[in-house]
Structures are given as C-alpha cells and as structure tokens.
C-alpha cells in the first residue's frame, strides 16, 4: 500500500490530510461540520420564513404583501456576498447597540448563529417563492374539501396544504438546500471557520493548495451526493399517490 502511494507520489498528500496533527484532515472535517450546521440551520430558518412569506403573499393584506414583495425583490436582487456583509455587520451592530443601550455592554456574537441568521434571511426569500408556487399548484378542490368538512385553518395547513404541496416543492427545495451548503463558503469573508476558510488556512500553511482544495471539493461533492439520495427519498414519499409520468409505469 505504502509503496504504491510512494510510486504515485501521493504519500505526502496522505500525510497532509491525515486526521491528527501534523495532518490537517481534522481541521477540514471540523470546517465541514460547521458548514453543515449552518446550512441546516439556515435552510430550516429559510423554510420557516418561506412558509410565512408564501402565506402572507397569498392570503395577506395589501401592506403585508407589499412588504414581502420588497423583501423577496431586494434579497434576490443583491449579490449574496454583499448581502452577507450587510446583514452580518448591520445585524451585529444593531444587537450591540441594543445591548449597550440596555446597559449590558458589547456582546460577542456566535459565528454559527450569525451565519444561520444571515443565510436564513437569504434562503427565506427564495423559499417564499418556491412554496408560494407549490401552494398555488395544489388543486383548489382539496383545500375546499378541508373547508367543507370544518377543518380549522391551522389544521388544514398541517394536514392538507403542506403534504399536498410537498411534491411540487421538493425539487425547488432540494436546489435551495444545495445552494445553502455552498453559500456557507461565503461566510469565510466574515471570518467564520467553515470548510472553505479551514481549507484556505491549511493550504496557506503548507503550500499544498492543490491537495487541500481538491479534498474540499471532494467533501462538497460527497455532501451533494448524500443530499441527492435523501431528497430522492423525500420526493418519492411526497409523490406517493400520484401516478408516474413515465409511460406504462404506475
């Protein structure tokens, strides 16, 4: 094994990527864990905003609808990198000002919370549109049936609207999740040690740029492949009860 690695000239790369120091593999995995934590949190927070946003846009009053239109337009118009800088610094500044005003002094803002808040606000705008489209795609008769049998609005949301829209929303949400995993890399700019920043540090310290960025790329790819498998299962579940679109296949 070792002689094989030697002949291929890879033994040095293996050493660099080993999980314990002096290898940097552990740092990369910690970075990946941070990235996934933020991506999950932001995706979930975004879904929550999206559900409220979609409901507000579909059923809200004129003022709420206008506010939501401004939110989705602005967020989707401004480059994410710029948004992250704005939301991160404005957000932490506002919290600090509020904290000082209340006499607590400056507070240290956790990178994870800040990352989830920043990316969640961005994801929320896209989620709003994905979920709005999915809710509109539900055959109106299904919601009418819920109403006709006396289902209260929140129960209708939980028992009819959400399950019925899932099949329409899943492909769009899978996209959003993958974007969330990769957008975490943008948080490197505010100094959050997610996978990309850890990789840059490892590469910078060892000058082995190719090795580390290739390794990081492989990690992002693995996340994508796993996500694909999970979303395929979710979609299969969400589409239960719908005939396959393939010919001669029920």
């Amino acid at each position, binding site marked *: 094994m070792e002689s094989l690695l030697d002949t291929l000239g890879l033994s040095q790369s293996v050493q660099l990527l080993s999980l314990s120091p002096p290898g940097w593999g552990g740092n990369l995995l910690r970075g990946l864990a941070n990235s996934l934590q933020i991506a999950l949190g932001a995706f979930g927070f975004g879904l929550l905003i999206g559900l409220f946003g979609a409901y507000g846009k579909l059923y809200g009053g004129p003022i709420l609808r206008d506010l939501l239109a401004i939110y989705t337009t602005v967020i989707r118009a401004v480059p994410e990198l710029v948004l992250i800088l704005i939301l991160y610094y404005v957000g932490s500044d506002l919290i600090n000002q509020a904290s000082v005003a209340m006499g607590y002094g400056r507070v240290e803002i956790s990178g994870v919370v800040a990352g989830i808040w920043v990316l969640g606000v961005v994801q929320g705008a896209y989620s709003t549109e994905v979920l709005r489209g999915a809710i509109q795609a539900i055959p109106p008769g299904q919601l009418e049936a819920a109403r006709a049998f*006396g289902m209260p609005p929140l129960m209708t949301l939980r028992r009819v609207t959400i*399950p019925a829209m899932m099949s329409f929303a899943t492909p769009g949400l899978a996209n959003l999740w993958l974007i969330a995993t990769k957008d975490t890399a943008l948080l490197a700019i505010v100094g959050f040690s997610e996978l990309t920043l850890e990789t840059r540090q490892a590469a910078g310290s060892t000058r082995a740029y190719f090795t580390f960025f290739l390794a990081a790329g492989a990690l992002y790819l693995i996340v994508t492949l796993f996500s694909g498998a999970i979303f395929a299962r979710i979609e299969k579940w969400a589409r239960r009860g*719908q005939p396959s679109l393939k010919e001669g296949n029920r």
Partner: protein
Amino acid sequence: MAIVVENLHKSFGALEVLKGVSLSARKGDVVAIIGGSGSGKSTMLRCINFLETPSSGKIVVAGEEIAMRADGSPADRRQIERIRTRLGMVFQAFNLWTHRTLLENVIEVPVYVLKTPRAEAIARARVLLDRVGLADKADTFPAFLSGGQQQRAAIARALAVDPSVMLFDEPTSALDPELVGEVLTVIRDLAAEGRTMLLVTHEMKFAREVANHVVYLFEGQIEEQGPPDQLFGAPKSARLKQFLQTVG
C-alpha cells in the same frame, strides 16, 4: 327542520346569482334542485355551508341559525366549522385528498376534526368503504381509481362524519356515462335509509325517482317547486316545461 334557507341572496360583483331563495327540508327529506346552467343551483348549495359567502339571508341547520355579519360572512368561525362537520358534502370533482389512501381520506375528518379514537374511526371507515363497494381499495390512492370509484369513496368520506344533512353538488356530472349508475345506486340506498339530502343534479329521471321534493331554479329564483310527480308530470311554469323538454 333539518335545513331552513330564507331569502338567500348572492352577488358576484354586479352579477346577482341568487335573488332571494327560500327552501326548507325536514329530517329524512330528499330535495332535488334542478335548473339550467347558471341558474344558481350550485351556488345555493355552496352558500349553505358557506363555501360561498351569501350576500344576505338566513340559514338554519338542525335548528341552529348561522350567525352572519352584515356582509354575509360567518360571524363565528368556530360555529361555522362545527356546523360544517354536520353537513357531509360531495363535490362534482370528488376532491379527495390525493396524498392519502381511501381509508385515510375517510378517517381524516373523524380522527382530526371530531377527535374520534383512531381504531374506532378505522373500523367505521372499513364498514363505509365496504358499503360503497370499495373494501378492497382501502389502501389505494385516489389517482389509481376510476371517477365512479373516487366519487363513491367521496360519499364514504362524507358519511364518516354521520352528517345531519348531505349536500350533493352535481355528483355525477364529471363521470363517464357508464359510471353514473354505480354512484346513483349508492345515493339511492342512502335515500332509502332516510338520510336527509340536498341534491343538485342533472339526472332528471333519478331526481324524480329518489326525491320527495323538487325545486326548479331559474335565474336565481325558485320558478316552481313541489312533489316530483307534479313537477315532472304536470309542470305549470312555461320555463320548466321548456327546460324539461331540452334536457329530455
């Protein structure tokens, strides 16, 4: 009185669809509502459970008057929700929940809205599905069934709440002709067992056979009403005569 509708008005913008309709049904009555397209018969039925908001009027279900605001919308959401569970509705387009199997469709309202114990609801749902001839399809999703089967399942869903009144909104209009019979058979059985029903329909022969009272609507008003033999056998109104001739 199972249902009393008094002086019901409904406008969509400038278009007045119902111009003061009154009608009542005693327990066990089967009232058929007939009329041409655009006569307001579906709108009238949908106003009874407030799927359409009436413009004005009075609706009493099983002795309880539905509280209305000045604009006709229900004043008390809980009251209208409670009354809706007493009105089993069957739609023209079935409107089964496509992400649930037939059994899940039938137990949905008893379990989640009426809080019936699940095991009890399932046992009852199986009896109802058996009754409409779908016992072997309990675990099938609606999309894999014919229209007639879906409509029979929808009737089982409406029966699952043991409604005081059943509302049928053109239950056979979306069906292929050869599937109409199986649905009518189920409705006929329900009439025979004394279910109170309001039935909006295009099936004149069927209306004559099962109804004990027929209402003919023309342009949002009741043009003529009475026992089926009188209405179909000796119509007084010229419009009704002409309508019966066109529908054959």
